[in-house]
C-alpha cells in the first residue's frame, strides 16, 4: 500500500517539477547543483540529478531557460540557468493552471462540487 502511495506522489511531483524549477529560476539564476540542492531542501520536492538534468536540457531546447557560463571559485566555470522571456510567460501560464487545478481538486476533496 505504501508503495502505491509513493508512486502516486511521484506522479504528482513529476508534473510539478517543471513549474517549481521555473519558479526557483524566477528569483535569480542558479547552476545545476544548486537547483538539485534547493529542491532537496523541500520535503516532497526532492528529485535526483538524473531527473533534473534531462529536464533542464529539455527546458533549454524549448527556449524556456537560457544559460551562461560563470567563473567558479573552485574548479571549472559553472553553467547558470535563468528564465528566458518566453519562460517568464510560461511560468505565469503554468502558475495559473496550477492554481485552477489545485482549487478545483480542493473543492472536490472538501465535498463542495456536489452542490454545483
Amino acid at each position, binding site marked *: 500500500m505504501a508503495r502505491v502511495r509513493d508512486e502516486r506522489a511521484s506522479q504528482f511531483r513529476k508534473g510539478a517539477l517543471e513549474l517549481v524549477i521555473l519558479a526557483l529560476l524566477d528569483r535569480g539564476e542558479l547552476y545545476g547543483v544548486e537547483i538539485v540542492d534547493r529542491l532537496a531542501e523541500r520535503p516532497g520536492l526532492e528529485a535526483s540529478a538524473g531527473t533534473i538534468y534531462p529536464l*533542464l536540457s529539455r527546458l533549454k*531546447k524549448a527556449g524556456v531557460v537560457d544559460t551562461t557560463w560563470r567563473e567558479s571559485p573552485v574548479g571549472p566555470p559553472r553553467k547558470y540557468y535563468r528564465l528566458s522571456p518566453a519562460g517568464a510567460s510560461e511560468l505565469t501560464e503554468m502558475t495559473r493552471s496550477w492554481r485552477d487545478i489545485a482549487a478545483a481538486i480542493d473543492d472536490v476533496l472538501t465535498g463542495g462540487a456536489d452542490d454545483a
Partner: protein
Amino acid sequence: MRENRTIVEYLAAVQAHLASLGATERDDALAELESLLRVEAERIGEMAAVDAVGDPADYAAGILEALDFDAAADAEGRPVPQGHVLGMPYDFRGASVERIGSRVWNPADPRILMPRMFGVGWTINLGAIAVKLGLIRPDDVGDESYDRIPRVALAMVLVLPVLLVAMALVILLIAWPSLPAELPIHWGVSGHPDDWAPRAWVVGVLLALAILPPLLSYPRLLRRGTPARSRLLAAAALGMAATLAFGIAVVTVADANGGASGNWVLLVVLGMFAVPFLMLYVPLRLGLRAEWRAAVPTNGEGD
C-alpha cells in the same frame, strides 16, 4: 458517422490521412488496426466493428499523436524503446543522429544501459560513464560545445574510422598467403574458436562489413552544412564498427599464426567502447574549453 464502410475501405481512408508517416511506421500501424478490426468483425460483424473505431481522420490523428509523443521523448533525451521482447527493449527503426545522441552520448541521463539503437538489447551510454568518472558534469556539454570543437580535432575523428578500416584491409591482404583455407568465425566464451568457414568467404564478409557503413555514411557526413554534432556522433558510431572490424582482422591473423588467446578477444571488446569514448570525449573537452575561454576570458579552464 454511420457510413457502412468495409474494413478495406476504412483502412484506405486511414492510410490517406497518414501520408506524412514513413512507410514502415504506416504499414505497422495499419496492420495493427486491421488485425484489431478483423477480431472485432468476428465478434460483432464487419460494419459494426468499423463503425466502433470512429472517424478515420480521428483514428489517424491519434496514431500521429502517439508517434509524435515518442519522437518528442526521444528528442528530449529520454530514449524510449519501441517495445520489449523477453524483457529486453527493442528498436528496429534506423539509427538517426538524434537516437545516437540520446543513447550513446547522453551525460544528462545517469543510466549507463540504454535501450539499444537498433536491434534487441541495450547499448552503453558513454556520456553517463564520463560523468561517473568525474570527467564532465551532466550539463557541461551543450550545442555550442559541438560547434566549438577545433576543426583539426573533428577532422581527425572523421578520419579515424577510415584509417582503422584501411588498416584492417592492409593487415588481411598482407596476411592472406599465411591464412589457412578455413578460418574461425565464432569464438566460445573461453576465447577459443568453435566454428570455421572458407577464408575467402570470411575475409570477404569482414571487409564488406567494415567498408559498407563508412561508404554509406560519409557522403552525407561530409556534405557542407552538416552540423558538427551530427558529424561527431556518427563518426563515433562508425568508430565503434571500425574498431570491431580492425579487432577481428587482427585476431583472425594472429590466430592463424598461433598467437591469439582469450585476452585478444577481451581487448577487442574493450576497444569497441574505449575508441568511441575517446572519439567523443576528447573533441568535446576541447570544444568545452573553447566555450569557457570565450565566456570567461580571465580564467581558462580553471582546473
